[in-house]
């Protein structure tokens, strides 16, 4: 019978207490009854003696039996005395005649008149005790009574009522059961409390723990902290769970390792029962080789794997393997799911496990090695499959075509653009190369042409009829000069001598060396060069070209008059130290619409007719600065002027570039 432990314990203990209480209660009642009965009997005895004494004294004084009756009637009136009777024996009857109401009427009185004392308890309607005492003839009695000394004269019967004790016993009984019931309730409550708190809740925890572990939650811990034996049990449980967890993890790892070894093997591995031939385990390679899935394998026998013509040989071999307890290499054929035969080399081994013998067969596919016809068939089938697959893919592709076409057109457009840029770049490069090659050769004769032209112009004077023609020669010569110089600069030297140099000195050299070219006489030049700036690493000639170009632009912007400020300082940009050169003019400024074009090659604001520029100056400047790992930018305010800023990486004291 399934019964909760707490109920069961309560039931048992309750029964014991209940029984004990019953016995005790019963004993209690009996004890009190006997006690009162005995007390009543003693009382009756003493009363009997008193009655007898009284009668005796009355008789000695010569009293008559009528006096005796009177005395008895008086005594009867005392509370608690139910009855007092005088019984006459045979001697009295013989002497005084029989008196009806004083003859013995029952067994006790009969016995008493024969000489023995009798006691009786009446549990009838009224609870009472009765004592019957014989009265013997004494010496002094013989004066009146005609009887021998020691003969029984009669008897005295006294009945004492115990009825008034009944109430006492009842109250006592009630009190007893009341107290016993209380004790019973308290005991039960204490048991329930203890069992619940100390026994059942830890047990519940243990049950949950056991269930968790059964579910596989091996990290579960019951953690009972009751401070008693249950805590010990809990600790033992947790330690068991911990150990179980470790063991299972170890086992899992091992199992995983083995499964991996098995499943990752390139050869097919099949394990089967040596007696029944039922397949018990296969690896992935086996599924792949045969085309059967694992569940299919599990429902098959190893015999199904071989074509009928191979089976006879196979049975002989298998018998031998089992007999020798080991396998051998041999070549055979197995049958795939699609009935294609695959030549394999089998390496078998015999494994005993759990009292049964298993055979492990490892099949190595020999198709490739042998190039069997079966293989050909297999490949043909695969090929057919692939053709179908591809055909389907091709059909799908047609739908994608439209999309691809658009993308292709886009890409083509971009490509065309790139090609254009590329061609331009290539043109520029070859132009530069060519220019570099012929420039010097052209320069000298050009210088001669210009020199002589100017000479003739000066000699003839403006009045000369040839002056205008000579001027045209001069202009054409100047244009040629500028084209050559710009082209040359644009074809940057491939190798440069670079060394640490002082930017201030470079600027000063530029100003002094090219004083004639700069024609800066009419401009005011402010030089703000602070002491102790770091040096930079670079090519002095190229850097001079940079400053020259910027200064020339500034000069042109100011149209010959204004203030040119050249300022150097140390600047920090993104954690690097730079020497910053600012070249500020008070010219007309650069219009917004061309601000993003001024570094473009062949961009110029100066008229071709002026013949001084083909628009390579700032483009060259930018590429030189870039080659020096620096940068160049500018800010310009229309009507107020322009500031060009050139950043060049500062050298550290140890000679490395500032980082």
């Amino acid at each position: 019978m399934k019964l909760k432990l707490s109920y069961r314990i309560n039931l048992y203990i309750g029964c014991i207490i209940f029984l004990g209480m019953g016995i005790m209660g019963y004993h209690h009642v009996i004890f009190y009854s006997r006690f009162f009965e005995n007390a009543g009997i003693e009382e009756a005895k003493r009363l009997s003696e008193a009655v007898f004494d009284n009668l005796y004294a009355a008789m000695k004084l010569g009293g008559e039996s009528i006096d005796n009756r009177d005395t008895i009637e008086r005594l009867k009136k005392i509370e608690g005395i139910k009855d007092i009777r005088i019984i006459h024996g045979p001697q009295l009857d013989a002497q005084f005649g029989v008196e009806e109401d004083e003859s013995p009427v029952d067994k006790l009185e009969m016995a008493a008149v024969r000489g023995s004392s009798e006691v009786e308890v009446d549990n009838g309607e009224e609870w009472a005790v009765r004592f019957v005492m014989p009265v013997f003839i004494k010496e002094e009695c013989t004066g009146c009574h005609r009887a021998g000394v020691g003969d029984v004269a009669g008897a005295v019967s006294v009945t004492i009522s115990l009825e008034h004790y009944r109430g006492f016993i009842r109250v006592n009984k009630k009190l007893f059961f009341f107290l016993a019931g209380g004790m019973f309730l308290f005991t039960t409550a204490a048991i329930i409390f203890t069992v619940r708190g100390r026994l059942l809740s830890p047990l519940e925890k243990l049950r949950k723990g056991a269930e968790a572990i059964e579910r596989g939650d091996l990290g579960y811990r019951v953690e009972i902290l009751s401070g008693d034996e249950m805590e010990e049990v809990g600790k033992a449980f947790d330690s068991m769970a911990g150990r179980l967890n470790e063991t299972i993890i170890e086992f899992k790892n091992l199992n995983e390792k083995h499964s991996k070894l098995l499943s990752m093997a390139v050869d097919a591995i099949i394990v089967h029962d040596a007696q029944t031939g039922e397949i018990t385990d296969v690896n992935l390679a086996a599924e792949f080789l045969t085309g059967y899935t694992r569940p299919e394998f599990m429902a098959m026998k190893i015999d199904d794997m071989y074509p009928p013509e191979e089976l006879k040989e196979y049975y002989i071999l298998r018998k031998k393997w089992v007999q020798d307890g080991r396998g051998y290499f041999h070549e055979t054929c197995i049958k795939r799911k699609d009935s294609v035969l695959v030549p394999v080399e089998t390496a078998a081994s015999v494994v005993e496990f759990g009292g049964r013998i298993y055979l492990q067969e490892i099949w190595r596919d020999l198709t490739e090695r042998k190039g069997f016809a079966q293989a050909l068939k297999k490949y043909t089938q695969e090929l057919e499959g692939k053709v179908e697959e591809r055909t389907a893919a091709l059909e799908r592709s047609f739908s994608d075509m439209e999309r691809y076409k658009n993308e292709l057109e886009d890409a083509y457009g971009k490509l065309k653009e790139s090609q254009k840029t590329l061609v331009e770049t290539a043109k520029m490069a070859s132009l530069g190369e060519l220019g570099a090659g012929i420039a010097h050769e052209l320069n000298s004769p050009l210088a001669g042409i210009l020199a002589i032209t100017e000479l003739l112009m000066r000699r003839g004077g403006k009045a000369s009829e040839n002056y205008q023609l000579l001027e045209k020669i001069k202009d054409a010569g100047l244009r040629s000069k500028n084209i050559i110089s710009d082209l040359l600069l644009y074809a940057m030297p491939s190798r440069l001598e670079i060394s640490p140099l002082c930017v201030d000195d470079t600027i000063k050299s530029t100003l002094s060396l090219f004083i004639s070219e700069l024609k800066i006489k009419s401009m005011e030049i402010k030089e703000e060069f602070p002491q102790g700036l770091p040096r930079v690493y670079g090519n002095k000639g190229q850097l001079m070209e940079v400053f020259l170009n910027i200064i020339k632009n500034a000069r042109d912007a100011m149209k010959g008059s204004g203030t040119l400020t050249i300022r150097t300082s140390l600047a920090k940009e993104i954690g690097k130290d730079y020497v910053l050169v600012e070249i500020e003019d008070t010219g007309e400024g650069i219009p917004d619409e061309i601000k993003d074009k001024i570094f473009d090659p062949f961009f110029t604001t100066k008229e071709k007719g002026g013949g001084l520029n083909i628009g390579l100056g700032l483009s060259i400047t930018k590429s030189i600065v870039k080659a020096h790992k620096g940068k160049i930018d500018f800010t310009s305010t229309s009507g107020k002027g322009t500031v060009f800023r050139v950043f060049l990486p500062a050298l550290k004291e140890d000679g490395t570039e500032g980082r």
Partner: protein
Amino acid sequence: MLIEFSDERSILVVDDEESVGIGMAGILNDAGFKARYVTDGKSAVEEVRNKPYSLVFMDMVMPGMDGLNTFRKIKEIKKGIKVVIFTGFFRDAQNIIFNGIKEGMIEEFVRKPFFAEEIINIARKYL
């Protein structure tokens, strides 16, 4: 036409391109200087050795003896002589120029081609 030379205003133009020499010398003579020209370094050294020039305009790149070597020779002969280098643009021109600067050779630098005015201004500055 032979021009009498005096110390103060005599100028030598050295350029392998004869037209440059003719033009420059003509411009300078018309401006009141006494100028002659030669077309190679060797002749230039001879000229300086024999005549009291005080200013030389010289091309940097010439066949045979180039500008730098010619300069060295000339300075050996006449220490106080001023030399103004002019040259066209060419690959690595700057590097050659600054080799000259390092040697203290170049007083001023004129890019070829040049204007008559530039030449006259420089000559006036030094003479």
